[in-house]
């Protein structure tokens, strides 16, 4: 894969850099890593991080440091659909453990694993600010709330159809 943003994305990066004071382009790092992750297959391979470093005139290590700190930035490949099921207290009170067990069984993967077809990763996560709509999961840029086994079936079927 060619690691290169499109002209349009480069213009977007430039716009983001302009939000911060002159010479503080490092502030744009996390927003730009989000874009890079979305653009290059859902995770940040070393050449991708090096590319971002070059773009923002940073040392590569400055990018690695950040990429490894934040839970939304993946430094290893993940499935096309990451089922991020919240398991913290308030969700647990409303049955998140059962939801996680159900997905494990249905997809035959343990937490942290990806299905053989590369489609699904199961990732138990900590509170996502949806405690009143529990149990819930994050899927890409969306939240799926008030989960039931039936809803999980629908989410998985829908993902398989759109692939």
């Amino acid at each position: 894969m060619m690691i290169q943003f499109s002209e349009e994305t480069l213009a977007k990066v430039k716009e983001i850099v302009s939000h911060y004071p002159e010479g503080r382009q490092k502030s744009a790092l996390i927003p730009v890593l989000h874009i890079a992750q979305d653009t290059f297959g859902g995770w940040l391979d070393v050449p991708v991080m090096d590319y971002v470093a070059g773009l923002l005139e940073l040392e590569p290590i400055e990018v690695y440091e950040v990429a490894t700190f934040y839970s939304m930035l993946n430094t290893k490949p993940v499935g096309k659909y990451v089922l991020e099921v919240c398991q913290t207290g308030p969700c647990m009170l409303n049955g998140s453990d059962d939801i996680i067990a159900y997905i494990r069984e249905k997809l035959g993967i343990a937490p942290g694993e990806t299905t053989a077809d590369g489609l699904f990763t199961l990732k138990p996560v900590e509170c996502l600010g949806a405690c009143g709509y529990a149990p819930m999961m994050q899927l890409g840029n969306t939240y799926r709330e008030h989960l039931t086994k039936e809803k999980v079936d629908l989410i998985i079927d829908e993902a398989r159809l759109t692939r």
Partner: protein
Amino acid sequence: MGRKLLLEKAHVEGIRYYDTYRREGGYASVEKALKNLSPEQVVEEVKKSGLRGRGGAGFPTGMKWSFIAKPEGVPRHLVCNADESEPGTFKDRYLMEFLPHLLIEGLIVSSYALGSNATYIYIRGEYAWVADILDQAIVEAKNNGWLGKNILGSGFDCDIYVHRGAGAYICGEETALIESLEGKRGNPRIKPPFPAVKGAWDRPTVVNNVESLAAVVPIINMGGEEYAKIGVGKSTGTKLISACGNINKPGVYEIDMTISVEEFIYSDEYCGGIPKGKRLKACIPGGSSVPILPANLLLKTAKGETRMMTYESLGDGGFATGSMMGSGGFIVLDEDQCVVRHTMTLARFYQHESCGQCSPCREGTGWMHRILKNIEYGKGQKSDIDLLWDIQRRIEGNTICPLGDAAAWPVAAAIRHFRDEFEWHVNNPDECLK
């Protein structure tokens, strides 16, 4: 029916969009402030209102604003803390999702008061669609002349930028937030200096919670003195409470601080009681880091007074028999819930979220989680309960930021009030979950 100042219009059709918001009287506080008040007068109104920071610490907002340093020729910044990650807390999301313009309006007035020409909203990365809603509201506000250069001919310039985080509870701590805004790992800084003196890019910076900044709108509209008349004592105005756990009507409620905890849990206007008629066992009233209270101490203080939903009343009795308002994340446990299990999930949360800079927090959170897991799964010993107590005590007060305390307090309170449940697990290993 309690008085509503923030969510009054939340259900008006189309209120998320500028035209409706404006038609409903939106942006009046910007007109009032920029045309009739000096920045110092705005700060004065906020001081008079008695508004206390809604992020959890409850520090008076007007006082914080008056502390901002003003060195010659150095820009100042306002940063809105929309990182909201404290388990049980989802009120800021609600406000931003349904009333984005209320926040933008509050930010413009607050930026004017503080002299911030570039204001940032640091929002947790997972709230991606909320960030889009805010971006859209900012464009609308700018197109209508409320942002940009020389707003309303006042000579004041202001732009607002949304900055998405990428998943890290610690970035809600204001100095970690600033590090993250600068493009670094979210490692908290040692305070003082407070951000108001040295913050983002070493410039004076005020960090305030979403709800605090939205509250500036009614404060300016009605005047600080009028606002201060709502509520009791030092708990002025209204507070958003996000209620969850075992209740019939989970959701976000605006309360004026004159109702009792019992009314909040059982009345139909709020939580609507406990599902299936079960009994109330315990509650964490202010987000996962504040002490859990058993039902008897939750509804009445140790002195036998009715416990109210105010800063003072929730805190009555200190940590021995009271709790805190905190972030307003209200978590209810019914009689069938296991306090050990719930505490274990919180311990795992804090272990996962520790930034790792201080050894008491980095090691202690992991240790507490492992011991709690052993107890929960029937592999604990009686001495483990005392060991847990000892570990939490050694974390508290010995770290750079309060995440260490936040991890220690729930464990301490669970043992203090529910020691018998820990002992039950130790004594009945065969009946524990496997």
